[in-house]
């Protein structure tokens, strides 16, 4: 992405994971907005209209699949890429991401060397 700064919404309840992801993405000059719970994440997504949404499938209030399904029904978010970042086993993660309309998934623990490039691949800037 070169010098392009993207706005990334991260919905992740685990503070250590969130910190790591923020550091990796901020090192590439992306703006990262973080929320720990699903309902707040949905509100933030509509308010901020980010370039990509990263969503943990295991959240403490609304679970991640339900949230992903909701986001895909919000007209303003229809074209915002949604990526599941999850500790689910690979097969389950793939199946859930596909079924709930995510554009892709990334398994935890993340690979800090490749994560930013993986996310960049989902961002479609005009």
């Amino acid at each position: 992405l070169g010098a392009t700064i993207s706005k990334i919404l991260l919905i992740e309840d685990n503070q250590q994971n969130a910190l790591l992801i923020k550091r990796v993405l901020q090192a590439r000059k992306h703006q990262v907005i973080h929320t720990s719970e699903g309902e707040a994440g949905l509100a933030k997504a509509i308010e901020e209209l980010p370039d990509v949404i990263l969503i943990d499938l295991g959240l403490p209030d609304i679970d991640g699949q339900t949230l992903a399904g909701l986001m895909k029904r919000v007209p303003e978010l229809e074209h915002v890429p949604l990526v599941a970042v999850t500790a689910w086993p690979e097969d389950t993660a793939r199946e859930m991401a596909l079924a709930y309309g995510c554009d892709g998934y990334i398994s935890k623990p993340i690979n800090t060397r490749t994560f930013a490039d993986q996310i960049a691949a989902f961002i479609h800037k005009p």
Partner: protein
Amino acid sequence: MSGSVNDNRVDLLPASAFSYEELTEAYNHTRVDYMVPMPMNAAKLHEYVECYDIDLDASAVAIDGNEILGLAMLGLRAGRAWMTRLGVIRSKRRHGTGWLLVTHLIEQAVQNKVDWMIIEVIKNNLPAHTLFTKKGFAPTRELLVLRRPPHPPADNPPPAQIQTLGWDGVHYLLKNRTSKPSWIDEPESLLNAGNLSGIYAILPDGSRGWLVYQNTVFQLGRLVIQTEVGDPQCVGRVLLHHLHSKHPVQDTKTENFPLDDPHWPIFREFGYIETFHRIEMTLRLKPGLEPPG
């Protein structure tokens, strides 16, 4: 109760000595690396305790000094107990804390004069399965956790007479259910959970059955399906078609659906996905009893 675990003294305190915020933090800490992520917040944990009749006095938190090592919770109902939320933080595992917690909860169940103790363990969680087997628990059946993304059924509804049920109807059906419930879909759990709706279907050939479910803003859940007369797949098709036509934008999650339930093929036909499997295990606490169900 206290015990010695690898030369460290571990004390067990009743969970009621901790706030919901403390219990939630401890629980989430034990599940950080769990094979199925299931984090909670304090409100969710409170709801869980109420819904499943968890006795926090009989539940336990393992501590070493000021450090919480793990916890386990005990649900108590007439004649039976349910162990749940058992977890030990990653760095303290394989040192006997889990054993101590399970032993303590079994003692609590005995003191409460229950006949049977029930647990569910995620399939392939071998350390937990081994621990429960060593404590005398025996597997009874395999249960599924199912999801269905929101969308209406694709085809036309099969012909049937459909009746939507109110509270009295739902209550009556749950009390007269013939299939064996797990703890989380026992009538007590469902009635505690609230927001229940019901559908009763009569097919042209006289087959009939019903479906009870929880209806919340974002999600349908806690599905209990039963065929009273006829082919479960024909009756199930009518009930699920009606359910998802009526609620096309809600996500569906249902837990502890028995793998051998005759309606399971129809759930698959309607787009339900297996998220993971649990193994239900029971421990007989009084001699000479047949397993519950």
